[in-house]
């Protein structure tokens, strides 16, 4: 009696349930960071990894696509972590942007943005070719997935690609975002990720807003707005040039 009633309560308060659950995850992560890693791995990084582990568990239990959010009692996680609140909170971080410094990184940010689309795209196309894909549409779609998991399906849909290829393309992008989130705090020291300018370069190059914002949040929260500022243009520019210019280039090389 009490258990079904409790589940009912959670289901009628999905978003509030999500706040409570995420709060507990954050608190556990802070404790783990302090006592297990002696503060060396940031609490946010641990929290994001716990989040991903929970998403894996949710996917295994329900067989669904939305990780933990597919469990009815935890569907509020989907609302809390969905595009609406994510964009709302990202925009809020701009209140902390130092305008002068952002302006200085303008040109270098644009360079990073171009490289951030061309490099992963070219690599994705080459790997797809090695794994046996030969037609320009599949190659372009898989390459686009290496840019981000949004550019991938947008490109695939625009070019009329097959469903399995689009699925592969999304999986590549999601895995890239996950890697960026997890690896950034560890790579930060080696790539000089400790100032606003390198954060903007990082945002433009890595692209995926979720990967960049998650990775930077776990590295140093103060860098988030600078990275997000360039990353936010990445998917848009990617969606713009991948199904057009880059597709023509791949087509020309294939012939």
């Amino acid at each position, binding site marked *: 009696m009490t258990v079904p009633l409790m589940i009912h309560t959670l289901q009628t308060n999905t978003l509030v349930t999500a706040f409570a659950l995420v709060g507990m995850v954050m608190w556990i992560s802070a404790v783990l960071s302090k006592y297990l890693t002696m503060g060396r791995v940031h609490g946010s990084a641990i929290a994001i990894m716990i989040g991903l582990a929970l998403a894996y568990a949710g996917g295994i239990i329900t067989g669904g696509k939305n990780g933990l959010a597919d469990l009815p009692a935890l569907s509020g996680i989907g609302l809390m972590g969905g595009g609406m609140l994510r*964009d709302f909170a990202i*925009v809020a971080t701009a209140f902390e942007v130092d305008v002068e410094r952002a302006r200085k990184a303008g040109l270098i940010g644009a360079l990073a943005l171009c490289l951030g689309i061309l490099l992963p795209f070219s690599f994705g196309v080459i790997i797809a070719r090695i794994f046996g894909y030969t037609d320009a549409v599949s190659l372009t779609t898989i390459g686009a997935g290496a840019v981000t998991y949004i550019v991938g399906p947008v490109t695939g849909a625009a070019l009329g690609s097959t469903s399995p290829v689009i699925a592969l393309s999304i999986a590549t992008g999601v895995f890239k975002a996950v890697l960026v989130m997890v690896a950034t705090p560890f790579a930060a020291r080696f790539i000089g990720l400790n*100032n606003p300018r390198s954060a903007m370069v990082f945002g433009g*190059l890595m692209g995926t807003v979720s990967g960049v914002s998650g990775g930077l949040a776990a590295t140093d929260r103060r860098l988030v707005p600078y990275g997000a500022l360039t990353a936010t243009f990445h998917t848009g520019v990617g969606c713009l040039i991948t199904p057009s210019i880059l597709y023509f280039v791949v087509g020309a090389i294939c012939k």
Partner: protein
Amino acid sequence: MVIAGVALLAICTILGSYLGDLLGLTLGVKANVGGVGLAMVMLIAARAWLARRGNLGEGVRFGVGFWGAMYIPIVVAMAADQNVAAAIRSGPMVLVSAFGAVLICFTAVAIVSRLSGPTETIDQIEAREGPLTPKVAQRDNLEGMTK
């Protein structure tokens, strides 16, 4: 008024999103082109405008600052609803191209961000100028939340 800050943030977000969709439509892409970025630019401009007129009250700062501080928990929730199971399941090509792409981009970050010579770290900047992360947080005793 706290709600004024929240409303300002909401208006910037909605306008940015609308303009991003409009830009996407104009360019013939099925995507929101830079909507979040445009919203951020508008919020920065609005903040400067309010500050110049002396209208940047505590309530407004708190209304926006709270959502900025909620950002990491929201990212954790976002991580928890990714399709991680499928990403792990879908085989070696996905792993190879994602790993390679990330590695190449990390290397490029290291090279590009050093292109124009050494620059100050955010710690050095803050040691000299005081916290960049804002008076918003300080004034409203939000340091604990933003750190």
